[in-house]
């Protein structure tokens, strides 16, 4: 009975007793969720265009952020460094298309997936070679990102809002909205959907597969750059950031691998779910449950909706 009380009653009593802490937890979850969604978006873009789970998305986040900070450290002004980092991601998109994707066109998906493994280790090595292995500080001030904290008394207690978190949530939302509109309302977006359905059919109606791939990898690179700036500003730029990208996996399972709204909703469910879970139920299991809670949530969803919340149901003729 005691256990049941602790699991089913006590957390909710605590939520009622300290609503300010609940609000703080929800806010932290929301910020994490938006950032998870941003990383997941990079995966979705590439999966939509090529049907490949891009294992390299995590290291692209690190590589983009390191390029930005590295250029700044070399004396390049911050905003120019930002533009140049974007240009590097464009170069990477061209290189990936020319060196990896084009020779592997029409190969089984697993081959392309393995190619992204190779790309991951290539980028890790290249990043460490150029920028070294030591963590770097994101150039928050130089990029005019707000810093500081606002503490408000809400629901009977202090709730802290980091200005950077507010900016991260807003910027990530804008990027997500732009990409959603771009890929659903423009000609390129329609071409992308055609490519996602069938490479051969898309080619037969004159869509340039190579061009689409470059655009999509570039878009994923820009998303990685934004995610790198935001995560880097929160906790520094280091190679361990790439591991956070693994949190995008349950987000994708939840939201579906092909849905931009799914990535957003999935990100929010994972972000808020893991924070609420860790905060209210974590102590019962010795803490640290947020590490695996997202995967449990995703597994439960898989059982009932294998294609994810917004994923396309695949019906194949046998």
């Amino acid at each position: 009975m005691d256990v049941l009380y602790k699991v089913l009653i006590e957390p909710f009593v605590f939520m009622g007793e300290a609503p300010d802490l609940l609000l703080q937890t929800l806010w932290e979850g929301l910020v994490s969720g938006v950032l998870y969604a941003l990383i997941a978006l990079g995966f979705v873009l590439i999966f939509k265009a090529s049907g490949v789970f891009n294992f390299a998305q995590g290291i692209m986040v690190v590589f983009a952020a390191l390029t930005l900070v590295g250029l700044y450290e070399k004396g390049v002004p911050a905003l120019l460094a930002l533009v140049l980092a974007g240009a590097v991601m464009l170069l990477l998109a061209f290189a990936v298309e020319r060196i990896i994707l084009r020779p592997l066109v029409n190969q089984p998906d697993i081959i392309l997936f393995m190619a992204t493994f190779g790309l991951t280790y290539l980028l890790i090595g290249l990043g460490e070679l150029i920028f070294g292995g030591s963590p770097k500080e994101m150039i928050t001030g130089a990029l005019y990102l707000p810093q500081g904290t606002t503490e408000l008394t809400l629901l009977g207690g202090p709730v802290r809002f980091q200005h950077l978190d507010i900016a991260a949530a807003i910027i990530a939302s804008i990027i997500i909205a732009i990409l959603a509109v771009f890929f659903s309302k423009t000609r390129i977006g329609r071409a992308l959907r055609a490519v996602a359905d069938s490479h051969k059919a898309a080619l037969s109606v004159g869509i340039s597969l190579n061009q689409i791939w470059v655009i999509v990898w570039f878009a994923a690179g820009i998303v990685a750059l934004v995610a790198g700036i935001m995560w880097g500003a929160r906790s520094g730029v280091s190679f361990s950031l790439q591991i956070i990208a693994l949190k995008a996996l349950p987000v994708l399972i939840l939201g579906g691998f092909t849905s931009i709204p799914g990535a957003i909703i999935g990100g929010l469910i994972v972000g808020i779910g893991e924070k609420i879970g860790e905060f209210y139920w974590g102590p019962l299991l010795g803490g640290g449950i947020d590490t695996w809670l997202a995967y449990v949530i995703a597994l439960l969803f898989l059982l009932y909706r294998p294609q994810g919340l917004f994923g396309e149901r695949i019906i194949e003729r046998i």
Partner: protein
Amino acid sequence: MSLRSLSLGLVVATLLGGAALPAAAQDSIYVPLFTYRTGPFAGSGTYIADGMHDYLEMLNQRDGGIGGVKLVIEECETGYDTKKGVECYEAVKGKNPVIVNPWSTGITLPLIPRAAVDKIPILSMAYGLSASARGDIFPWVFNPPSTYWDGMSMIIKFIGEKEGGLDKLKGKKVGFLHLDASFGKEPIPLLEELAKELGFEAKLYPVAAQDMQNQSSQWLSVRRDRPDYMIMWGWGSMNGGAIKEAVRSGYPMDKFLSVWWPSEDDARSGGAGAKGFKMLNWHGVGATYPALQDIMKNVVDKGLSKTSKDKVGELLYNRGVYNSLLIAEAIANAQKLTGKKVVSGEDVRRGMETINLDAARLKALGLEGFTDSIALSCTDHNGHRPAFMQEWDGSKWTKISDPIEPMGDRVRAQLEAAAKDYAEKNAGWPKRTETCDKAS
């Protein structure tokens, strides 16, 4: 076989043979360094690797090695990964290493049973298995100058003194933020024992390696529990991440303390809010010591180091120097004990047991005032030396306490029980047969 294939084969054979030659040479001493300049822990590992390498290279450049014998220094990149660390060990053990430095508690643990078999001593300097301080049970493992349990007891003692006595800790809450790995879990038994004995509540906040830079959940829990003090056992990017999160969540920095692993970079990452953060340390910071100046002159200025000049003398760089100081002293002792110039792992094990770095010896080595004296013996492979508390003042570390002695009585009892337990659990754990040298 074509001429081309034959030529290629000869070139490859020559290259491979050439690569193996330095380690196998009879006129040198092979010192492998397990390092990590890549991966999530590179932020800590790089400085340590530089410090270790540069001190030994300085001895090569300045003195022609130790006792006139050149040191062959070879790094093996482990990435702080236990599997890779064991691979490094397997790769170097055939080259007659005189000692290995795993630089990871996770790597140290699987190497402990191998050390006696392969006759290669392990130096796990202030990390690893705390119980391995017992030289009578672990004759091949050394973890000077303090164990993690010593460190935890020193922090509790410091907090107790701040509160007006250890008895004042009754009813307090002490949070323990730790890497969820062998290293981070190592001091938990002692913390829980002390909590029971002194009447405080220990709250554990594990941080998984993949969440080192995503600690907001842990710090929300800290806000929920409101611990009176927070103790950190972190490594790599976990330290910087924790300091940032502590600042973000408004945790009072003067109540946030750590074991000896955060660096200047970690503290700097917290910005102005990190002022007041405290950590244990047992050696000097800065490059004013003559030995450090020799490193600058003989290694860094000659372009033989991977470090940049401004990093020489920083905390973790000097930690690496301390590590190599112990290696060098053990080799020198081994040469004296055996009368041999080119010593083996067995000799250096004896050299470690006869380490006696007193003030005069430290002065002779160009490290006067760098650290407290330390002497090891057959039974004591640690020294259980005191450490002091230092505080981040916003730009540098400032020493804020006298040396804090570990709680010897409590730690010793735990160590004895843990060492006995280890030997019992590992069936057939050999009884010590190695003889003690007179200097012990």
